[in-house]
């Protein structure tokens, strides 16, 4: 792959990553959120694959396959199953985030501010390897992580909090891939397994919240406080 094509493909994939993050923040319909989450997983796989092909790095290729298996297949499947169960319990109505703490316009503005913040904060990391095109995309990974964090604290449904947590995790993974400093394979494996298990535990808890509280609106979680 020649260098220009590499840079353009990488930028395209990173752009897709950021756009899907904003779309996840924008949409309220949980089914749509899961769909865009899957697309974002594909963008993340693409980033890993592009860097792997450019650097002729077989290990990174294996990681790309792992990212695909985890973030395009396993996690969306988990989310879809949780959603199907929740909708069946709710009498077949499509589940949506009804009353987030911040409205759509303000959320999108916040996303813009967070992206700027990500660029400002990650300057030293970009400066570390200024010649690498991947390094210049690190702020995008950070922006996605920040947007995920923002979604996490402003949403009230257990299911959409779970999706926001995974969005944040996608951003962190993107930072990891874009720094192109390889981590050891066993660490990579441990991190992926931990994320998968955390998501599975949260999914089980989601259904348990629904069983005990009637529905999975976290506004109901007000029993414990001082």
């Amino acid at each position: 792959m020649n260098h220009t094509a590499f840079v353009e493909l990488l930028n395209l994939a990173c752009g897709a990553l950021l756009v899907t993050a904003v779309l996840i923040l924008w949409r309220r319909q949980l089914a749509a959120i899961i769909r865009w989450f899957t697309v974002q997983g594909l963008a993340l796989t693409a980033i890993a694959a592009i860097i792997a092909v450019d650097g002729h790095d077989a290990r990174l290729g294996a990681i790309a396959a792992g990212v695909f298996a985890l973030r395009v297949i396993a996690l969306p499947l988990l989310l879809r199953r949780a959603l199907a169960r929740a909708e069946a319990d709710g009498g077949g109505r499509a589940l949506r985030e009804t009353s987030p703490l911040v409205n759509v316009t303000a959320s999108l503005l916040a996303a813009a501010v967070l992206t700027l913040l990500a660029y400002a904060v990650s300057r030293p990391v970009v400066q570390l390897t200024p010649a690498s095109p991947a390094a210049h995309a690190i702020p995008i990974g950070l922006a996605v992580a920040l947007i995920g964090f923002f979604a996490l604290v402003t949403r009230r449904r257990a299911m959409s909090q779970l999706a926001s947590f995974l969005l944040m995790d996608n951003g962190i993974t993107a930072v990891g891939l874009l720094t192109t400093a390889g981590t050891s394979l066993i660490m990579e494996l441990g991190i992926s397994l931990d994320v998968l298990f955390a998501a599975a535990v949260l999914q089980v808890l989601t259904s348990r919240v629904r069983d005990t509280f009637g529905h999975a609106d976290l506004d109901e979680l007000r029993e414990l406080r001082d």
Partner: protein
Amino acid sequence: MRTQALLLASVAVPLFGAACFLLATLRPRPGWRLTAWVSPACAALSLGAAIALAVVRSGHGPVTALGGLVRADSLSEFMLIVIGAVGLLATAASPAWLNAEIAARRASPRAAAKHSALVQLFLAAMAAAVLTASLGLTWVAIEATTIVTAFLVGQRKTRQAVEAAWKYVMICSTGIALALLGLLVLNAAAAHAGLPAGLDWTRLVAAAPHLNRGVTRIAVALLLIGFGTKAGLAPLHAWLPDAHGQAPAPVSALMSGVLLSVAMYAILRVKVIADLALGTEYTRTLLLILALASLLLAASLLISQRDYKRMLAYSSIEHMGLLALGAAAGSPLAVAAVLLHMLGHGLAKGSLFISAGRVLQLTGTHRIDRVSGLASRAPLLAGCLGLGILALLGFPPFSLFASELGIARAGFASGLGWVTTVALALVLVIAAMLLTHVSRMLLGPAPAATEGGLAAGAAPPQAGTERASTASVIQNGSVATLAPPAIYAAETAKPAAMFPDSGLLPVVVALAACAVLGVYAGPVTTLLHAAAQAVVTP
């Protein structure tokens, strides 16, 4: 070879225990009473292995195993002892606790076996966290404990327990995700400095002076906040009171004594790298902010606390704040005091949580004002609670006295006079509050049996209530033969049920160990100083 076996035993033994209990979940009913004791047996073996390792390796350098994946220096050896000691305390108290739950029909033998399996997995993950050579794998092990303990926190499946479990997993996973971001950034800095992949701690320390300062600064801030979440330090502490309040008593003991300490261990490891790369000021400032915020928060929320398990949880936040203060001081003496404080706090707080769990089983209420006159109804339990609180507040025979004094002295010696003074003032406020709350539980008249029965109505078993009332009749009978008629009349008007004092032997032993450690630390001192040397920058 022998050291390697001892090293791996601390992970392998709990894993074996977990496997036993997973098998037991298949056919839980026959012989549960016997199976229950596998848990303390495994914990005792692990503690034995940890002590043996410390003795064998005393005076030697770090040892590695499994091709460099596992590395133990004096600090890891000391942490293994902390994990083993608190683990033994919690698991030794488990069979009595679980049997009471089974008798009360709040848990089945299958649930009890599952509980024990998860506890063993938790202990294995914690031992792995302090034994791995790489910061990355330490992260993986610490995050694994979040997953393992989630179901332990939510074990009771009540509204409160489910809420606590949700908050626990959500906040801890988010916090620890920040730590992961920090690790990835640190990894980028390390790769730039020419290190091979893997975040090996020794290599990071060796290369620390060459790490890019700007990048390391971001990484360290993220790592401190991330691991600080797991240690219950202030900005992201919200999971701690809920999880500790709702988890089963032995699990609260483990989380407070082991989980928080191991997260603090990770912070100590990160601090070494940060100090070498950035100078001591940066981490010190961050840690002081976390410490003071934690102390302030604990003090303000303890003042009007109504739930005794949450009260103990806020006291854990206070003690983590003290540990952060000691870490900020950073001298060898300060770090040795921090480590001793970890062990003392684990033993004292573990004892208190187990006693509190017993109080909950007997009275069926979390509220401080609904429990009174414990001293007259269950003298041994009340004694354990009272002594535990005295130990926690740092009264002399107990080791927390020595360690708190050490932290305060180190604070003044390293030019943190003002901060230490403020911290000590907050500690005094907290001590006053704890004493007020606990004395209200222990002293005063016992509530009338009818009222107690109403308060306890939902929780304790029918059989238990009956037994308790028979006991009270016998008690009143024996009192009646001795007491003057007036008192006898008062007794019959307000019969206070005596509670059985059982299952408290581990608590008594742990408190005794804490006191012995305070009077004569002996060989532990050597280990403490060696461990402190491992994480103090020259």
